[in-house]
């Protein structure tokens, strides 16, 4: 292969991600981003300058050796590329799709200073998909240590912690409350952004490493944390139970039929595969005019699912396609969702109503939603979060005709897991209080925590970073403990 000079590498333009046409994709649940072809991946890989002291790596919460895997890829040694990637990241096909690279690794890329960064996420996805396609290689596992670790929750935090501990030879069991592992990756993030077979395939890789995933177990109900540590004989526990509790606005009419949490809506659509009703049993309803309240990733996902289901209905049954509105009390500049998701949502036809806040929901005599009264807002001084706080404009109320309202207002940790866990402290936000922020050690001996259950709703990769840090500390603890006992 021809060697490029640095100057030549700098001249290669960043490759756009091939995507499904917006007008086509809004009627299906197929993936929006189609992935690089081999030649696109190789050309994009050729852009990397393979810096000796790579700044991109510092932006990655799990410290993937980015230039190394990219160099291996462009040298045509995909095998090595996979090994480098999976050395640090056990869920690369997932991260390559949903990580906000634009604020993490890619923003640190030296090319970003003068032009566009290397498309690290897209290359990660390419390599990971290649690995899954060939049937995924099982990473090497150390000889068994005889230690037992229980992990609560099969989301990204728990799965990463499990993978790292299994690699070090510990016996790991992951307990998951739902019927499938994956956490938000399977119940929240829709198929068109993250195909579920990729998630299950990556979980399958962990099982090949000896991780045991037991679904249908609610910790706090079937077993408690104290029982895991005593009767059940686990040496350590990691809590990765996420932040799954929905928030409803405190306004009148919130319990009418047709008002639901984004969690319920997305769970019906994604985990239960409601978009395939009646082939799958769980129904999901779509209004003619849908309001999604909030503007985070969760709101974008809800709006885009509603849009797809509505368009599909229009296609099958005739009639009007749906109006799907994002109703957000701040302005476009404050939208917390990833820019790419907002862009995709707009392309597909989601309508954005900024500086608008619901104050009341109306129902008809059958208890169904028929409208929502909103008030216009303006931006005042910055609040504690640094964002300008929205202030209602007096006498600016107006009515929106809607027949479905999806509340996507943020979530908090589920308190169930804390039942019978003496000594485990929580903050007033309901998150676990960690005694050591670096490692996730909690105020209870032998118990670590990480991911959304500690930080509140955050990102897949930060949850994975926390799972990784905890695994390293649990390993240190288990080895020390054993050494003392001997």
């Amino acid at each position, binding site marked *: 292969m021809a060697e490029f000079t640095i100057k030549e590498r700098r001249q290669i333009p960043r490759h756009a991600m091939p995507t499904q046409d917006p007008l086509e994709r809004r009627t299906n649940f197929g993936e929006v981003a189609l992935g690089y072809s081999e030649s696109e991946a190789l050309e994009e890989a050729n852009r990397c300058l393979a810096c000796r002291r790579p700044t991109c790596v510092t932006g990655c919460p799990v410290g993937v050796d980015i230039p190394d895997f990219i160099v291996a890829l462009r040298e045509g040694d995909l095998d090595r590329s996979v090994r480098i990637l999976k050395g640090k990241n056990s869920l690369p096909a997932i991260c390559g799709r949903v990580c906000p690279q634009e604020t993490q690794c890619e923003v640190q890329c030296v090319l970003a200073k003068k032009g566009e960064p290397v498309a690290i996420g897209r290359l990660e996805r390419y390599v990971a998909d290649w690995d*899954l396609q060939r*049937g*995924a290689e*099982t990473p090497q596992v150390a000889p068994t240590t005889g230690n037992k670790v229980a992990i609560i929750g099969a989301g990204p935090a728990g799965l990463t912690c499990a993978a790292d501990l299994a690699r070090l030879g510990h016996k790991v069991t992951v307990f998951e*409350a*739902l*019927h*499938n*592992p994956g956490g938000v990756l399977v119940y929240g993030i829709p198929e068109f952004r993250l195909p579920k*077979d990729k998630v*299950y*395939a990556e979980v*399958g*890789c962990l*099982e*090949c490493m000896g991780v*045991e*995933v*037991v*679904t*249908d*177990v*609610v910790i706090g*109900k*079937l*077993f408690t944390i104290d029982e895991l540590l005593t009767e*059940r004989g686990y040496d350590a526990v990691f809590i990765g139970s996420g932040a*799954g*509790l*929905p928030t*409803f606005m405190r306004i009148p009419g*919130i*319990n*009418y*039929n*047709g008002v*639901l*949490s984004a*969690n*319920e809506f997305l*769970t*019906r659509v994604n985990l*239960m*595969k409601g978009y395939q*009703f*009646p*082939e*799958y*049993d*769980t*129904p999901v*309803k779509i209004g003619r005019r849908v309001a999604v309240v909030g503007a985070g990733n969760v709101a974008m996902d809800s709006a885009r699912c509603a849009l797809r289901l509505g368009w599909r209905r229009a296609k099958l049954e005739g009639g009007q396609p749906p109006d799907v509105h994002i109703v957000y009390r701040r302005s476009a500049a404050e939208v917390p969702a990833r820019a790419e998701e907002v862009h995709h949502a707009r392309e597909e036809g989601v309508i954005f109503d900024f500086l608008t806040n619901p104050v009341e929901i109306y129902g008809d005599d*059958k*208890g*169904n939603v028929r409208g929502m009264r909103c008030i216009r807002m303006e931006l005042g001084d910055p609040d504690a979060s640094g964002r300008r706080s929205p202030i209602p404009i007096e006498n600016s109320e107006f009515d929106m005709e809607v027949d479905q309202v999806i509340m996507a207002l943020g979530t908090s940790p*589920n*308190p*169930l897991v804390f039942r019978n866990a003496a000594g485990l402290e929580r903050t007033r936000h309901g998150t676990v209080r960690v005694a050591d922020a670096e490692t996730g050690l909690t105020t209870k001996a032998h118990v670590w925590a990480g991911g959304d259950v500690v930080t509140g709703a955050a990102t897949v990769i930060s949850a994975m970073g926390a799972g990784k840090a905890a695994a390293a500390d649990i390993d240190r603890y288990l080895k020390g403990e054993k050494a003392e006992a001997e």
Partner: protein
Amino acid sequence: MLTYLPSRRSSITRWEVQVYEIIEKQVFSDVTKMVVVRAPEVAHKAKAGEFVIVRVDERGERIPLTIADFDREQGTVTLIFQEVGKSTMQMGMLEVGDGFANLVGPLGHATEVENLGTVACVGGGVGIAPIYPIARALKEAGNYVISIIGARTQSLLFWEDKMRAVSDELVACTDDGSYGRHGLVTAPLKEVLEARSGEIQRVWAIGPAIMMKFVARTTEPYGVKTIVSLNTIMIDGTGMCGGCRVQLKAGAQFVCVDGPEFDGHLVDWDLLLARQSFYRVEEQEAVERWQQLVRLENVA
């Protein structure tokens, strides 16, 4: 450790389902079925008033069912259901040796059982199943238990003998008069409240929402606290979706984690009834599709 650990292969693309085996089945009527399911860990923890969520196969809905009985030694839980939709019809076709793809529990709060003196337990239709362990626990705690059970017609009435065994008095009634007293459960309940005014300390009622609504309305003038067990639409059963929420006088609560038992005098029954019928059109569609599939299967 867990006896129902799933066996898994490498690089799966579809999650394999584990099976919770049915070891006994009884057909109470055309539409009312009882299954005893092997789930040792759940049986070990189960208490009266709690529920489980089952899924019949990997395409199934998550269906909440109250635990009607459990046997810790045998490691089983007993579930009773009425075939009202596609999922329950499919469940009704399961036989001994078949199983559920998923069974998670115990969920919800257990019944608060204490010795109150004299109490009444009202079970309507398939609600007789969940009222049974509550009546039994109340009896064991030393209460004088008056039970009233009812159903639309004789064939839908079951467990009269089991209920009698844990009750000091029992009245059975049917709406159509085909068995026992002719009429709704609220009539004998009112008589008991009249005849023993001041004596009845608490009433438990489980059955269709409309029955619980009228039981609550019957007891309200007497000021007798009335506990109902709500069976709303649920998905996760762990407080994650809010689909199960019920409007109480003081605000909304989640049936799966705050209940399933609530003070019946505080529930907004009309909203509850409206929420329960929200998916009626889809349910009907699923039933018709299922019945057609079954017919085709029988022909083939």
